[in-house]
């Protein structure tokens, strides 16, 4: 599929996944209120779960970028260094192509090549890059990485992943409450007569199974969304540079370096260009590894880029 096809497909499938996730969350939430609370017409617990998870994420929304940048010891660019000046130019060129303001730029003193973008919208965005990345890549490849990160900002991926995190958090809260209240359940709203009772029991069993699986399921769904947005960022970035093979070349160069990026913690993994855990995660394939990865395997990303360049 070419660039436009991939962009459209990735956007649509993201929304499909999010809608399914919302329905799943509402099933858990309203089920909780039906079996343990005042019924689904007064979904107190659902509301409380959402509010708590939102408050917990509010800090991340407002101050997340400052926190991540300080935890990685990111510093501003030294424009006297030719590579850093080149990076700055490449970022400014991509801002022109994307039509968004120039994000704040930082560099991290880590020999392992990686980059990440953070910030709740294009006006409050930052991009950080490791010294290893600047040393490894040439100008076109740096531009491709810049385009990928700018696309995350332009597509509001940070905001989307935050909303997904809120839902994952809410589901986790509800699952936790359900497991505590399991043996105290003594009321059931509505339902008179044996027929109703049997259906309600089946519904309860289904719901309990869903609750037990919920934490894992919601993690899987969140990672699915993260991977789709990575493919989308690759395609959007290629739309900006009109040079998909530059990103393919950059990904190959980055992935051939073995060490994990120690300065970037796992919580911020989904913001990076490749998984900071290192080569082992990025090249491993197979169902289980794929399910929990924040990023698609490099080989599949390169294949998608080659399709955009009409090579396959």
């Amino acid at each position, binding site marked *: 599929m070419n660039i436009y096809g991939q962009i459209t497909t990735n956007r649509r499938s993201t929304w499909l996944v999010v809608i399914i996730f919302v329905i799943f969350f509402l099933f858990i939430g309203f089920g909780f209120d039906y079996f343990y609370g005042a019924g689904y017409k007064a979904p107190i617990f659902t509301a409380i779960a959402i509010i708590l998870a939102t408050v917990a994420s509010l800090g991340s929304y407002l101050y997340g970028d400052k926190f991540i940048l300080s935890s990685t010891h990111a510093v501003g660019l030294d424009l006297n260094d030719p590579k850093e000046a080149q990076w700055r130019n490449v970022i400014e060129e991509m801002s022109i*192509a994307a039509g968004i303001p120039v994000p704040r730029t930082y560099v991290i003193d880590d020999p392992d090549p990686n980059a990440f973008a953070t910030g709740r919208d294009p006006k409050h965005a930052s991009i950080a890059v490791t010294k290893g990345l600047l040393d490894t890549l040439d100008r076109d490849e740096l531009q491709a990485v810049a385009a990928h990160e700018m696309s995350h900002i332009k597509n509001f991926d940070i905001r989307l992943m935050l909303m997904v995190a809120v839902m994952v958090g809410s589901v986790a809260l509800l699952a936790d409450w359900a497991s505590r209240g399991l043996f105290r359940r003594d009321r059931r709203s509505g339902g008179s007569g044996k027929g109703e009772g049997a259906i309600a029991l089946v519904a309860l069993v289904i719901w309990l199974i869903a609750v037990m699986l919920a934490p894992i399921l919601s993690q899987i769904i969140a990672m699915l969304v993260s991977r789709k947005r990575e493919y989308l960022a690759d395609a959007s970035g290629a739309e900006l540079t009109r040079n998909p093979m530059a990103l393919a070349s950059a990904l190959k160069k980055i992935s051939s370096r073995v060490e994990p990026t120690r300065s970037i913690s796992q919580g911020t993994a989904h913001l990076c260009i490749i998984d900071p855990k290192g080569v082992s995660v990025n090249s491993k394939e197979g169902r289980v590894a794929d399910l929990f990865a924040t990023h698609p395997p490099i080989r599949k990303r390169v294949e998608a880029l080659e399709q955009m360049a009409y090579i396959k």
Partner: protein
Amino acid sequence: MLLLIILVLGLVTALWVMLSYNSLISLKNQTLNGWKQIDVQLKRRHDLIPNLVESVKGVMKFEQTTLTQVIEARNKAISAQGIAEKAAQENVLSGALRQLFALVENYPNLKSNENVAKLQEELVTTENRIGFARQFYNDIATQFNIAQQRFPTNIVAKTFRFKISELFEITDAKDREVPKVDLNLK
């Protein structure tokens, strides 16, 4: 009852018209802004060139002809009048800069000089910025044109007389040719 239905339908239609019109207005202004941004990058190039040439004059003593060509082309581009002539002179300037850029590429001892390396990066980024500004203009103009032609927004577009934007185009056929670079010492 019937009156209520008609009222609701009328309101929904009015709302749809308003939303479509507003989104077309946003795209129209973004397209205009995109066009003006190209001029911003062209002006940046005009302002940059005298300093760049000064900073490498000493090192590139052999290349006086090329350096002079660049300055002359830049002056002509500034004084050009009218869209067609401006575009033509900017193309000439791009050509002169390409010559300079290619020269630097082929002299290894020039490349290792720090000032020349900076010049090279500045030339590359300047030309890239102009290119990306034009690319962005084409992208946003295409988005605007698509919005005007898609159903049902096209009804609103025609009613309020929105115009299809022209995409940025090469007007000089010579620009489509691969540039020839003369590397003789002059």
